């Protein structure tokens, strides 16, 4: 009986949660800044990227869903000589990094129901990182599927019942894996449009 009550209470909670609830889909323009090893490789601030976040509200102040996106980093290195063992190669380098996070994510909303609603969140999953170094016609490609985290802070502002805008900063951290000896991380600054649905 006690067990039944607990389960019932839980179900009521879930249904109650579902009843008022909502889902939020945020599509953001995402700007990136490489940090750590990724930042050493491509240090320029990148305006190329987008993210998509989906959250289903399981509580008025807790959303669970997924996070994905695509950030591109690009950098050039001037003419220089790179030597490895008995080989040397001179030329300009063009560097590209593509980063695609795929994560399950939870956000905690500090002021649910209010127009201005700050949140903090965490995503856990993987980041696919592909790094390509071009010299002349040669391309060196390194890639990895890394175990990854993405904590974020931000806020959203409700425009009406169905839509809002959001600003969020995510720190995307992929642990060392595949071709990379060190973690591949970057900050992303996301300006998004929020679709609120039922």
């Amino acid at each position, binding site marked *: 009986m006690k067990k039944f009550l607990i389960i019932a209470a839980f179900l009521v909670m879930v249904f109650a949660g579902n009843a008022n609830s909502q889902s939020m889909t945020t599509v953001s323009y995402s700007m990136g800044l490489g940090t750590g090893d990724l930042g050493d490789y491509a240090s320029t601030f990148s305006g*190329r990227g987008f993210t998509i976040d989906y959250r289903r509200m399981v509580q008025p102040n807790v959303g669970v869903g997924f996070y994905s996106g695509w950030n591109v980093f690009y950098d050039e290195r001037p003419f220089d000589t790179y030597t490895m063992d008995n080989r*040397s190669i001179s030329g300009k380098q063009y560097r590209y990094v593509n980063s695609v996070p795929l994560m399950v994510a939870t956000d905690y909303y500090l002021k649910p129901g209010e127009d201005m609603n700050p949140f903090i969140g965490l995503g856990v999953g993987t980041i696919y990182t592909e790094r390509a170094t071009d010299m002349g016609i040669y391309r060196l490609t390194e890639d990895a599927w890394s175990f990854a985290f993405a904590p974020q802070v931000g806020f959203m502002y409700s425009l009406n019942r169905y839509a809002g805008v959001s600003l969020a900063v995510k720190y995307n951290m992929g642990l060392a894996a595949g071709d990379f000896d060190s973690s591949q991380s970057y900050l992303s600054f996301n300006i998004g449009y929020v679709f609120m649905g039922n």
Partner: protein
Amino acid sequence: MLVFAAAIGLWSCYPDGPDYYEDTDITFTQHDSEFDFASRQTYALPDRIVVDVEIENGDTSYVYMRDVYATPILQTIDAKMSEYGWTKVAISASPDVVLTPAAFKNTTYFYSYWYDWWWGGWYPGWGWYYPPYYTISSITTGSMVINMADPNVDNPVDRAPVAWMMIGNGLASGSNNVSRITDAINQAFEQSPYLKTN
């Protein structure tokens, strides 16, 4: 839909890479770390550069680079060798090393004919080969290639391993400006200080 549009938008602003043909110019050098360059003094260099081979009714004839291009290239090689303390001698004077420049008009079957040219044409009875750690597969159409080898070999097949090589990739294509090739030769010597005998 939005994601799709965003993806297309992203492709359209994907970073550019090289702006000019010259930005793709690269100079690759590789050397045999066992080879003692400093103990050698003299070299031989042909006065023509082979660029292709034509086969007609079983007869092979070689195609040479026009003098307007070949002369500055050969002069550049002579200048750099002289700067590094080498003395030019005729092939009959048994030089310590021979240089074998070529420009690859195409790569499919040229290699073995290039070899035959030295064997039967320029340096009779003499040949060379690439040690297994050399990456000749990276030579592409339009590349300038120079090999250095010691012809004073004493082995049953009279073929000497290549001691030093340079590849200027793609330099001979796309532009009729010979300075890209001579720049690459200068760069090749600059990044190979072990060639100095003085």
